[in-house]
């Protein structure tokens, strides 16, 4: 993702935003464009069209392409462009002011901190769980796999309410204990972190399990036969094999951790400057008719997401280059 630099002169906001829009569209368009060029290259045409199944009339191909591309533009590019153009509607000055306002800053800090806590936790858990499920046979493995998927299937709001039921100081299971030691979990930062960890739980494990299953146990077995101990096997054999899949999982996990709304909304208490994450702050600003500021914070979230996706594409490309073909999952 290229960084959009402010122009030196004081051009007005609408010009700026349309300029930014064009830039974004060009960058994304180029990504699509390369694929198109490749598709229409004669070398490929001659290679594919010897096969009867791919010999379609030009207009059929054009129609299908046009349909899918316009769908792509309508449902993915347009909202993205809308976020940025709304954010810059009042110009860069207002955009910058909205982001450096103390409540906005504290929400950015809280979001980054939450992700920074949730990621390592889920990293360790995800690798351990995937290792356990993929490399060993034991009773109840199926149940464990299902449980790992639980946060995917449960609505985030329910997840939030579960934490309320457990940790609420008034009605929760641990209420008396928390009151006795004057500890706060829900309506405070720990609750937000807990809810985020819960909803991002399966991302890394889910990414690794099929990969590790496909890789099989032969290499580990060979390492053990050659005299490696458990740690050596893990660090020298397993980890290098899964590193790209792991990175991919971490990236997805991070994207969700920063963007989570439902579960966090239930446990946050919405205290400005204290327990508001970025998605919650966007909602608050929107409800205060502060549309430009709302979209400014939203665009920052979108930028983080785009950055994440860019890293993701790079990781995929890198993984494709390094991994042997039979070990790839996608």
């Amino acid at each position, binding site marked *: 993702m290229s960084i959009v630099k402010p122009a030196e002169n004081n051009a007005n906001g609408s010009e700026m935003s349309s300029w930014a829009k064009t830039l974004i569209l060009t960058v994304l368009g180029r990504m699509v464009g390369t694929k198109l060029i490749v598709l229409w290259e004669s070398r490929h045409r001659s290679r594919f069209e010897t096969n009867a199944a791919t010999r379609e009339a030009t207009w059929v191909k054009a129609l299908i392409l046009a349909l899918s591309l316009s769908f792509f533009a309508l449902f993915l590019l347009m909202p993205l462009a809308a976020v940025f153009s709304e954010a810059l509607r009042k110009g860069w000055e207002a955009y910058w002011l909205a982001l450096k306002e103390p409540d906005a800053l504290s929400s950015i800090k809280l979001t980054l901190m939450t992700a920074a806590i949730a990621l390592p936790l889920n990293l360790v858990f995800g690798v351990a769980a995937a290792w356990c499920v993929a490399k060993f046979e034991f009773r109840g493995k199926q149940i464990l796999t299902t449980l790992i998927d639980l946060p995917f299937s449960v609505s985030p709001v329910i997840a939030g309410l579960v934490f309320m039921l457990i940790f609420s100081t008034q009605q929760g299971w641990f209420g008396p204990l928390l009151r006795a030691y004057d500890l706060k979990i829900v309506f405070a930062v720990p609750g937000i972190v807990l809810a985020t960890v819960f909803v991002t739980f399966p991302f890394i494990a889910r990414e690794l399990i099929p990969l590790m299953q496909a890789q099989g146990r032969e290499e580990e077995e060979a390492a053990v036969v050659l005299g490696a101990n458990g740690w050596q096997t893990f660090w020298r054999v397993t980890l290098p094999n899964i590193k790209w899949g792991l990175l991919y999982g971490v990236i997805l996990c991070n994207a969700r951790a920063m963007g989570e709304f439902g579960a966090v909304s239930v446990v946050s208490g919405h205290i400005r*400057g204290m327990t508001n994450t970025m998605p919650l702050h966007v909602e608050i600003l929107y*409800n205060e008719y502060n549309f430009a500021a709302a979209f400014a914070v939203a665009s920052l979230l979108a930028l983080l997401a785009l950055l994440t996706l860019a890293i993701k594409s790079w990781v995929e490309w890198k993984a494709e280059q390094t991994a042997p073909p039979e070990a790839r999952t996608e």
Partner: protein
Amino acid sequence: MSISFFYRIFATALASFAFTVGAQEVTLLNVSYDVSRELYKDINPAFAAEWQAAKKGSITVNQSHGGSSKQALSVAAGLEADVVTMNQSPDIDLLVERGGLVAADWQQRFPYEATPYTSVTVFLVRKGNPKGIKDWADLARPGISVIVPNPKTSGNGRYTYLAAWGQALQKHGNDAAKAKQFVAALFKNVPMLDGGGRGATTTFTQRGMGDALVTFENEAALIAREIGENQFDVVYPSVTIEAAAPVAVVENVTRQRGTQAAATAYLNFLFSKAGQDIIAQHYFRPRDPAVLKKYAARFPVVRTFTVENALGGWANVQKTHFADGALYDQITERR
């Protein structure tokens, strides 16, 4: 030895963390309803300045906003509010019932039954009033579309419903059957119910739905200021409901945090001249007669009734109108 050493480090770290979070300066948490955001944004710094001027140190008031009843439930579930500032007294009564978070006599703790300001329910129509909406009867006309927040989840919607009901009672000489008929006709004109006051506003102003929005006077004034004076007109009906906004100190939180004095001073500030002035600036009707007079141009005189004097009090309203299967459910079911 090493264990106790680590324990000590841990305890020190924890204590210093608690210190930086809690004891550095006095902080209060004000848990409030949805559309009071702008008001408290101005009240809080003014109060902090006064507190500091009185040599009592620095104080920060944090805010949490949301649907009134939802916010009350959050406080009941342990959100550590020092004060609650709501728009209908059932939301504070709930905190009295749930383990005595608020003292039972909270209405006697501050002037005017602990309500620093009121607002009235008015109509907002599109510029020039193309559909000629002048009074409640017009809202029930066929072909009119009315935007109202959901009375089940929002105080604003509840007041709208009760205003329609109360004025119909007055008009038809306390005939409940006629009132029911009228309110049913009105709610037949409601295409959708938003969860809160702000949601309904956005539906009417941003999405362009509806011929009239029924909401509080202060919200209508804010819309005119924020979204454009030339797009909407405010219509005052012949008679409407007066909604008093109650405030209370959350006793067991302030006792535990040692903030009773600050919380009480904060709520008292709302009743002071300075507080009342800020309230009037935000188009809430102040209680102080002098301040009300100063801003008389903003607050047209309108005939009003209250839940207490015309509808038999909140407990009665709750039972006969909003309980499951009660009048409100019967009316909306027949749509």
